[in-house]
């Protein structure tokens, strides 16, 4: 059957004028709009989640060998959600037919592109610690390729002691090169080690800038697709996801993306909410908290649940994770910010009284790892005296592992790891006195737990091991509170920091390529900004290819020089967008001199090198310093764009009559 939605992924690229190949990464193959990934694993069940453009007849098959997928989950046992638009009028023509009463009755996705269907298939009656292969079907038609990479391993039974490995990262969801490098470095490291991941933890900020559905798609799901398809990511919500998702109601793109245990399905006390929960993995008990938008006070529901969960935890190891770090001097300061102070003063006392061994957080764009510490809850400036139980570096091959008594005991020491360095631009304001390692490099953390030993490694984006620490829980170890522990060297702020330029996304389509033909005019600036509107008649404008310019360099369309030459140039060109709600970011890669203002359908979306005003009334033009192509993300493209034909327009200005160089060489791209 030829379904209109099945062909959309195929025709969409062709309808985008001047489309070029994807630079890196890429959209999922049709009909998927989000490739299958695994969620909510336990010893006996797992959930496979995927999205399609338009509905399918959802079927998942799984089995112990790729050739015998004898376990079947089909419609009726699959949770379906859909995005069909709030009003008929806002639905693109090609999706009108799917607004059937049956589809409209489905649970709604918060803000996914119209036409999106999400399927969540729970496979039950599985054996623990067992590898299964799976495939996703549309009825009888197989959608996933015949590949052994579509596999998962069920959790071991609670309490099982064997080696486990998990990956921890945070603040990564930018869709830029550092995120990819960190992911690749981890994959390279575990391949070299021949020790795969059991699962992974994301400590929040996985979809910059505001956790919108399209940002989740391009900056999380497409970025980590190979890892997501076979190992479960256990998340906690960051403040950026918190812009569009709410812990109080459990509604938003974050809650659409994940399936989390609310009824204690994976171990622990049922939380009744996806905002905070716990799970077991073998002999480790994990606790996830929402540090962003829920009450953190001791009588709040989350703190009460935490205490109840810790009361019942019987694992060898206790590990907690959330977004806002109790101790940091990275891009955030835990002595100044309320969210961080509250996690330290209200939540940490419960954590440490419950015997938690390791706390994983993010938010601050840095890697910081503490000594073995306990009891530092001050709401004022954090100090180290008497709160450090072991001030060594915890390195198994240097100062030696941190030692704790066997079992779960209160106040025997916790190690804090801030791992907000997995993609976003880095920052540092000082040094926390409790930290043994502070490293301003992109990277992530691998944790290995083997019996009574836990080992953490920070792997930077080049694949180099930059920190290693261990905790050994064995025998009886006396607690020794150090009155004058080791002090980290004082942080000296660099006198100057290198200026950074914005980076284009890795996964993009070209809407208007470099060298494209543009309608142009050197006198249109006298018409205000009317010429930027979509219905402006530019039929008397000349048409020529970029680059436009004069001075040094070679230009496809040279402009006159000297005092008679133009000081400004207006260019415009149409481009097509089938469905604007699939666009994550619109960006301009441009080489220019000296200043420009860009418009989409008459709305200003970028202004560089120019002060107030436009056209002839422009003020404060400044000669461009430097040269070469720069990237600018356009402001609020969603509100400027419309389905179908759009117009992109640029006015470019020389800074003065004496400016020798004048250049405009643009390329419009879309991250989708």
């Amino acid at each position, binding site marked *: 059957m030829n379904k209109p939605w099945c062909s959309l992924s195929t025709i969409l690229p062709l309808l985008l004028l001047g489309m070029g190949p994807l630079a890196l990464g890429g959209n999922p193959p049709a009909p998927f709009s989000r490739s299958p990934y695994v969620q909510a694993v336990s010893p006996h069940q797992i959930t496979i989640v995927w999205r399609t453009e338009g509905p399918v007849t959802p079927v998942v098959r799984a089995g112990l060998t790729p050739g015998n997928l004898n376990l079947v989950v089909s419609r009726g046992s699959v949770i379906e959600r859909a995005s069909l638009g709030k009003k008929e009028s806002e639905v693109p023509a090609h999706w009108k037919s799917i607004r059937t009463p049956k589809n409209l009755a489905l649970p709604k996705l918060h803000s996914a592109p119209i036409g999106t269907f999400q399927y969540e298939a729970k496979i039950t009656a599985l054996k623990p610690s067992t590898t299964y292969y799976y495939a996703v079907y549309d009825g009888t038609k197989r959608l996933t390729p015949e590949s052994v990479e579509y596999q998962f391993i069920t959790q071991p039974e609670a309490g099982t002691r064997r080696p486990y490995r998990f990956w921890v990262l945070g603040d990564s969801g930018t869709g830029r090169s550092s995120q990819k490098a960190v992911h690749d470095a981890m994959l390279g490291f575990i391949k070299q080690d021949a020790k795969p991941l059991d699962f992974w933890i994301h400590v929040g900020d996985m979809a910059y800038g505001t956790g919108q559905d399209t940002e989740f798609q391009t900056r999380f799901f497409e970025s980590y697709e190979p890892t997501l398809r076979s190992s479960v990511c256990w998340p906690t919500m960051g403040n950026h996801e918190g812009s569009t998702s709410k812990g109080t109601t459990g509604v938003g793109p974050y809650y659409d993306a994940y399936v989390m245990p609310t009824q204690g399905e994976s171990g622990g006390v049922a939380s*009744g909410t996806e905002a905070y929960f716990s799970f077991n993995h073998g002999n480790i008990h994990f606790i996830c908290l929402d540090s962003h938008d829920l009450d953190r006070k001791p009588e709040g529901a989350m703190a009460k649940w935490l205490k109840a969960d810790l009361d019942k935890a019987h694992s060898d190891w206790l590990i907690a994770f959330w977004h806002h770090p109790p101790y940091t001097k990275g891009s955030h300061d835990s002595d100044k910010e309320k969210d961080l102070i509250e996690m330290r003063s209200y939540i940490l*006392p419960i954590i440490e009284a419950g015997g938690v061994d390791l706390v994983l957080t993010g938010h601050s764009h840095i890697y910081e790892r503490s000594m073995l510490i306990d009891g530092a809850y001050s709401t004022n400036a954090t100090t180290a005296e008497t709160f450090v139980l072991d001030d060594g570096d915890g390195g198994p091959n240097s100062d030696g592992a941190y030692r704790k008594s066997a079992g779960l005991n209160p106040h025997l020491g916790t190690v804090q790891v801030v791992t907000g360095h997995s993609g976003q631009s880095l920052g540092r304001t000082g040094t926390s006195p409790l930290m043994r390692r502070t490293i301003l490099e992109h990277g992530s953390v691998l944790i290995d737990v083997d019996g009574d030993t836990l080992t953490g490694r920070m792997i930077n984006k080049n694949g180099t091991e930059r920190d290693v620490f261990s905790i050994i829980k064995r025998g009886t170890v006396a607690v020794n509170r150090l009155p004058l522990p080791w002090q980290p060297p004082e942080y000296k702020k660099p006198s100057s920091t290198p200026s950074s330029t914005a980076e284009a996304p890795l996964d993009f389509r070209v809407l208007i390529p470099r060298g494209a033909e543009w309608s142009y005019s050197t006198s249109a600036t006298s018409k205000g900004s009317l010429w930027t509107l979509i219905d402006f008649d530019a039929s008397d404008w000349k048409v020529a290819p970029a680059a436009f310019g004069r001075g040094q360099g070679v230009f496809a369309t040279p402009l006159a020089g000297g005092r008679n030459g133009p000081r400004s140039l207006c260019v415009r060109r149409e481009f097509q967008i089938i469905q604007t709600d699939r666009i994550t970011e619109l960006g301009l890669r441009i080489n220019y001199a000296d200043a420009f203002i860009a418009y989409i359908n008459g709305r200003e979306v970028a202004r560089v090198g120019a002060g107030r005003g436009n056209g002839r009334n422009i003020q404060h033009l400044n000669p461009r310093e430097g040269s070469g192509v720069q990237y600018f993300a356009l402001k609020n493209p969603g509100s400027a764009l419309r389905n179908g034909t759009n117009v992109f327009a640029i006015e470019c200005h020389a800074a003065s009559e004496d400016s020798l160089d004048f250049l405009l060489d643009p390329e419009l791209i879309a991250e989708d």
Partner: protein
Amino acid sequence: MRILCSCQRLHLGLWIGLLTLMPGRLTAHAGPEHEIAELTEEILFFGATSDRLLQRAIEYRTLGRLKEAEKDLKQAVSLQPSQIGIRRELARVQFGIGQTKEALQSVESGLRISENDLDERASLLMLRGELQVADGKHEKALSDFDAAIQLHPANADWFLLRSGLQRRLGKHEARLAGLKEGIRRTGSGMLEIERTEALLDAGHWALALKQIQPELEASRLKASWQIRRARALIGLQRRAEAETDLKLAVTEIELRLGPGLKEASLLGDRGFAYELLGQTKQALYDYLAAMEAGSGLEVQTRLKALQAAPNP
């Protein structure tokens, strides 16, 4: 080289600064002070929008600069009156400053435009309930909590908040019924615990004891459940057994409290154990310490009752 006058320099400095911040601002978040500085420049240069003001207010709030947050939010509301979320944020900030009356007005204005957004409406009703509690208008608060839960019956936290208020109002049977519904809707283990507390508060000692026994056996840390069992045993006139439980609970809590004495719920629990043992002085000490560590109405209520008792 052109010579610039001082005002031109200032202006140029501003927009040159913007050139460097513009690309970064699209995705980065480099600490609240940095964000505030960048948003302030954007507002100065491009003008105030509700989005920019809301973002800056959130950063101000993070730093505890609530007055500045309030100012931005008021302006954001005036720029985009239809945004319910901004009004809710404003009400929260005003509540934080102690401006309960103004916060109520902000909530009311949000409620007037929330007919089509039931999740937002439910959040606003819960907030109005919290404001009513702070104002001592408990019955009105309860009515708001009921209405919010009816609109959004999947939030365990809200069931818990309502239960706390019903306890203070002595509405034990309604509380038990509400918790039963909350457990059915959410499956929350925390509401199960609250239900045991509600059974004890309602004097259903034998029923509570039945709930407590398996929980006690399943728990690694037993003090909370030992105290609950002691309450049931006291109700059943089994004082000696209760005292054994209470002493065991105190011993466990002392081990768990650590040197800083900062775990509010443990201090509250120990205070309650002392109170049940008749050791009033120690109970008062623990309740005060718990309040200092962040405990709220639950401990405050016990503290006040104890202080009001003859010869505390």
